[in-house]
Structure formats: structure tokens, C-alpha cells
């Protein structure tokens, strides 16, 4: 019993060991897995889900849940593609305008959840529809092409011929986020708000401004994700990031972030992303079907949740 308890405290350690176990397993079971080319590909595959999971984790920790991140990221790909592809604006100007748009989207979510105290899931369900709709209207429902040589570097570039540039983006963003959420005053405060909002009020923690920042943070993460996607697919589409939303919830929860808010940490969520991506990449290399991957990922998630529940009971 005591052993199990100790293990539960070392959540990230266990998950990391699990990821390592998967990694070694795949290396032995597929001849194509443990090769520099595939390993580099693997790190690139982490990026989009990773960025979305950073956004999702922060909102879940604060006691809410930002369901609009997928719609936001998709809308931003449409904006980037429209500005650069259709309108032919210079890259940095397109990026800047889209960044401002992301701030506005985040502020709208923050205003609804923080100032008006609308339930976060409902508020972002609403804005999700709004952002998706905007994306569809602007793109007329089709993929907008975006050919810009310089811009391709973000989602297709390789450093020293091997290391994908988007991996670098994820690593930098993730390190920055871990520091932001677990080491700054703002980070501490959103943990406390998520843990006990009422007590946070009595401790003089400002709900409105801290929550506003949470949703601005998730909008900026969606924006970074949109840059990577737009560059990778050389275009923008109004539903391109939608499937990532629920996956990011799974990865967060898998990584130990409590769905009720206030506990867990981003590092765990990132390991969750690694496990999910490993399974999907490794099984591809073994020639397993896409559908089977879903079954495996679902089973792993359920097993971890059951295991945690068992520990909790003891």
C-alpha cells in the first residue's frame, strides 16, 4: 500500500517510465521505428497536440475548460492563409495581425469566464461555434492555399538537416509554460482559484484578471499551433484543428491534471502527449490500422484512470 502511495506521488516518473517502456517495445517490434528519420518525424508529430495540450491544461488547472482552442487555431490558420496567400501580405505582418486577433479571441473568452462568470465550458462552447463560423465564412468552407517560401520553415523546416523546427518551437513553448504555470505568482494563483475559488476570493486573489490571463494564454498557444499547422499543410482550413480539442483533454487528464481543477502539472500533460504520439507512430511503423490505434489509446487512458482511482481509494 505504502509503495503504491509513493508511486502515486511520483506521477510524472511513472508516466515517463511508461513512455520509455513503449519506446523500447516499439524499437524491438518494428525495424522502422528506431531510425533517425522516424525519430525526428516522431518529435514533429508531438507538436500540434502538445501546443493544444498546453492551452487546455492551463484552463483545466484554473477550474475551467477552454473548448474553443480547436476552433481558434483553425480560424487562425484561415486568417494566416488569407493574409499571406489570398492577400499576399508580408509574412510578419500576417503573423502580427493574426496574433492581435488571437489576443482578441482570448479576451472575449476571458471576459465571459472571468468578468461575467459564465460557466467556462458553456462560454467556450459558444465561442467555439462563433470562431468556427467565422473561419467558415472567411474561407467559404474550403482550404485556402498559402504558398510562402519563408513561412514554410515553421512547420517544415529542419535544423542541421534533421531536427524539425516545429519541435524546437514546442520545446521552447513548453519550457516557458512550465515555468509560467508552476513558478510564477500568476501560475500559483490559477492553481488556487481552481482548487477553491471561494477561498481564493477570501485570500484577496483577483478572479477576473487572473482568469482573463488564462484564456489569453490558451489563445496564444492556439495561435502558435496555427502557425505550425498553416506552414505544414501550406494552407488554412476552418476545421483543421478540431480533432485536437478532445485529444488534448485526454492527454491532460492522462498526465495527471485533475479535471476538477487545482492540481496536476503541465510536465505530466506533456508526457501524456508523448505517450499518445508514441503509440500512434509506433503502431504505424508496425503496420497496424488507424482504427486499432484509437482502441489502444482509449484503453491506455482508461487503465491509467482506473489505476489512479484504485490508489486514491487506498
Amino acid at each position, binding site marked *: 500500500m505504502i509503495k503504491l502511495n509513493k508511486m502515486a506521488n511520483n506521477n510524472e516518473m511513472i508516466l515517463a517510465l511508461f513512455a520509455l517502456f513503449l519506446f523500447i517495445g516499439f524499437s524491438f517490434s518494428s525495424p522502422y521505428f528506431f531510425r533517425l528519420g522516424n525519430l525526428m518525424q516522431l518529435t514533429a508529430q508531438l507538436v500540434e497536440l502538445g501546443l493544444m495540450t498546453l492551452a487546455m491544461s492551463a484552463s483545466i488547472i484554473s477550474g475551467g475548460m477552454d473548448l474553443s482552442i480547436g476552433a481558434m487555431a483553425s480560424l487562425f490558420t484561415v486568417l494566416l492563409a488569407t493574409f499571406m496567400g489570398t492577400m499576399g501580405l508580408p509574412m510578419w505582418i500576417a503573423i502580427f495581425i493574426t496574433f492581435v486577433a488571437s489576443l482578441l479571441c482570448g479576451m472575449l473568452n476571458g471576459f465571459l469566464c472571468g468578468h461575467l462568470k459564465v460557466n467556462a465550458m458553456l462560454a467556450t462552447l459558444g465561442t467555439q461555434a462563433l470562431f468556427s463560423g467565422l473561419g467558415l465564412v472567411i474561407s467559404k468552407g474550403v482550404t485556402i492555399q498559402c504558398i510562402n517560401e519563408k513561412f514554410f520553415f515553421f512547420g517544415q523546416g529542419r535544423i542541421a538537416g534533421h531536427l524539425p523546427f516545429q519541435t524546437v518551437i514546442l520545446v521552447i513553448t513548453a519550457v516557458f509554460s512550465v515555468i509560467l504555470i508552476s513558478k510564477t505568482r500568476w501560475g*500559483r494563483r490559477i492553481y488556487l482559484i481552481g482548487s477553491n475559488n471561494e477561498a481564493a*476570493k*477570501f*485570500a*484577496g486573489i483577483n478572479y477576473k484578471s487572473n482568469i482573463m490571463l488564462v484564456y489569453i494564454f490558451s489563445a496564444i498557444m492556439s495561435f502558435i499551433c496555427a502557425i505550425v499547422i498553416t506552414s505544414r499543410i501550406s494552407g488554412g482550413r476552418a476545421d483543421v484543428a478540431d480533432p485536437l480539442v478532445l485529444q488534448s483533454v485526454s492527454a491532460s487528464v492522462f498526465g495527471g491534471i485533475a479535471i476538477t481543477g487545482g492540481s496536476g502539472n503541465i510536465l505530466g500533460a506533456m508526457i501524456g502527449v508523448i505517450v499518445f504520439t508514441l503509440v500512434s507512430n509506433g503502431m504505424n511503423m508496425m503496420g497496424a490500422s488507424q482504427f486499432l490505434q484509437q482502441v489502444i489509446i482509449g484503453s491506455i487512458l482508461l487503465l491509467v484512470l482506473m489505476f489512479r482511482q484504485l490508489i486514491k481509494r487506498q
Partner: protein
Amino acid sequence: MGNVILEVKNLSKTYSGITVLNSVSFNLRAGEVHALVGENGAGKSTMIKIIAGVEKPDEGSEIYINGKRETRLTAARSIQLGITVIYQDISLFPNLTVAENICIEKNKLFIVNRKEMKRIAQETLDTMGVKLDLDAKLGDISIGKQQLVAIARAITFKSKVIVMDEPTAALSKAEVEMLYKIIKTVKDKGIGIIYISHKLDEVFAVADRISILRDGYMVACDDAEKFDNQKLINLMVGRELRFVSMQNEEGESEETVFEVRNMTCEPYFRNVSFKINKYEILGLTGLVGAGRSELAQAIFGMMKPQSGEIFINGKKVYIKSPEDAISKGIGYLPEDRRKQGLFQGHSMACNISTVTISRHLNKLGLISKKKELQTALANINKLSIRPNLPTINIENMSGGNQQKALFSRWLETNPKVLIVDEPTSGIDVGAKLEIHKLLRQLAKSGVAVILISSDLPEILAIADRILVMRKGDIVYETVAVNATQEKVIEKGLMGSGREIG
């Protein structure tokens, strides 16, 4: 007195090597009130959980219900055998009506027969002599009335044993009187009651027998007449302990450190003015709902008063939010420790550094774990918080120690004014005394302390001046040496105007 309906013998319980109950024996007869008292952590709750079938006792423990030995008591079995536990935070359904809550166990059929349900509920309430609106939503009625609903439910379910865990913690004086009456009718039906409380006067008011637990041992069990206040306390804490009065010894000071002038916040309170001189503790009492906590919250910036001025050390301050209040040197230890104070799942250190987090940063402006631990350790030493582990999850500490940690949170802010709202509710006698000493020390060091409490002996022992509120007005102001319990109660119940005495 009836025959024994519940008996435990040789009851032990060990959690990962720590013994919390040690060969305890206890019995309950039909139609008696058996009070179970002891400090926090004495093992009362564990014992109740075992009787309720929620926790398993160690090997060799014996539990007899209606004379039959129960070897595998589960929660469902316990309920089926007629044992009802009314927990501190009531386990009713706030979205259902009063009638639905009372008859919840009766709904064995798929179809709910509302007429029948209301008839049964009304019948039960009649036998208790209580009037309640059957169609009211449970969440809309007072906690006192909810407690009555819980009892009615137990009667409807034909319970043989009712366990009440601190039933009066959230009740007003009038509601407590009501509860006493109902306990009497419940007793007359032949139901046995186990009554757990920290408030000794209550225990003496209702109990036929008293059992005392200390550190997991049953140290005494006898008829209530055989005990008196002092004896009971000695048995509970195992040492001589008196409810010491701790009035100001620094002598009078004319220097006003905190003042509120004509503060009104309708509909909660109006025209409230008071002053606190240096070295003074101001006691604020009155019934629950008299506007005491609202007054505190208005001073702390959580509510917007329509009018009123606040002065600290003679200087007028403007407070729009709790952040403002904190920056001006006002601290507020709220009433409900669990809902308004604690961050459960977080460490003691994190719960202490909450408000002063800006002082716990390193050179880069990031939170310094080291500084947080240092602060926690300093407070652990100062207030003798147990266990002395800054990293312990605050959930796993006893109520008294949690309260000390929350005190530390505010002490760290070096407040000029500290408002403490029911600071000793639900904590044991020993910790109470330590908190009283702490309040006195603070006052001595020049902090204006406002003590809000329903516990009159506490107010009379600690406060230098007493304000009594009733329905939002201050009806009585007196210096503590002139105050008597009777007078304060009388004013709280029916005072009007403002009497100074």
C-alpha cells in the same frame, strides 16, 4: 432505560501503523442520549465511521447490533440495521424538496407517489412537533431546518440509532433549543442517540451518559450526573486546563487604531459605528444571521457598503476589494474553514504563503520553494503546528492545526487589523486555548483584533469590549468586565436601539 441496541467491544483501528482506536468498548441503550466527547483526533469520527460501516475495524474487534454480532458490516448493512449517521456537512439533496428528502428511502417503487410521500413526511414532522414547508427546496431553507429534515428522515426510516456529529455547529441559539426538544421526542420513541459535540454545555443539556475518548482510548464512561465541566475537560485533555480569561493587561489606551463610522450595507446591517483602541480585542456577537459576517466582509472589501467610512490609525482608507483591504493592513480569517479558507490538496506551506506570495520570490521573480518552507517552519515553531511537516497536504491535518495554518497565512501579512470569524468553531479545547493566547498576543503587539463568535464564554473570556448585533443593528455595547452571559443573550434575542453599558 431500554436494553442495549448497539455495542462494540475491543474495537481497534490502525491506519498504516498508527493506532487511532485502542480496544474501545462502548454501548448504547434504546431511548438514551449517549454523548461521545474528546479532542480532535481522539478517534470519535473513526469510531462513527466503523459503526456506519464505512471503515473496517481491525481483526478481533466485536460489533453487536441488536445483540447479534456483525462481522462484516458494510455501509448498506448498517443502514439496513437502522443506523443513521447525520454528518457534520449534511448529506441531503439540496435540489429536492423537504418531503422528497424525508421519504428518500421510502421510494422503493419506480413511480413516485407524491401524495403519499407528503402524507408520510407530514406525519413524521407532526410527531416531532415541527412545522416545515414540505414543498420548499431543501437548499433554500436554513441549515438548522435541514438538520431537522435529516432527523425526520431517520425517523421515517425507522432508525434505531441516530448518530449526530456536531449537530449544532451551524445552528442559532433558538434552533439549538428546538433541537433539544426534538431530541427528547426522538428519545421517547425508543431511539438511541449518539451525540458528538465539542460544546460541553450542550453535552450536559442533552446527555444521559457520557463517554470520553482520548488518543484512541476510552478513558471514562458514566452517567452524565457524575461529571462536571472541569472534570470532563480534564478527562478529555488529560491535564488541568481552565478556560482562562485573558483580558487586556496593558492598561487603557486612548489611542484608536481602527474605527468604522456609520457603515450601512442594506439589507444586512445599517449605521454601524465602533472604535478599537490600542491593545484591545473587540468581541462581536449576536445570532447567526445578525449581520456579523457581512459587516466583516464589508470591511474586508468583499461587499460594497452603501455608505460608511473606515479609519486605520486615524487615517481614512478607501477599500474596494479584498486586495485593497490587504494592502491597507486588514486581514480576515473567514468563518467556514473548509469552504472559504483551505486550499485542499495543497501543502501547508502553500496554504500559508497564499497572501504573501510576493514576498516568497527569488531574484528572477519566480516562486522560491525554499522561502515558502522557511516561512512555514517559522510558523510551525511559533504556533506549534502539528505535524511539523511544511509539505504535508493540508487535508491530512486536524481541524485545529488547519486553523493555525490559516492564522499563519494572516500573521504573515503583518496586519494592522485582524478580523477573525468563529476562529475556534469545531476545534478542540487545547487548540482553542492556544488560539485565544495568540489573539491576546496580537492585541498586545498593537493589532486591532475583531473577534466574531457565537461562543459567549469565549467572547466573555477574551474580548475587552463587546458589541451585540441583532438583525443588522448594534443593540448593545459594553466593556467585558460589566457583561454577563444573560444580558448578552437577552440583547441578542430582543434588543433594540443602542444601549451602552
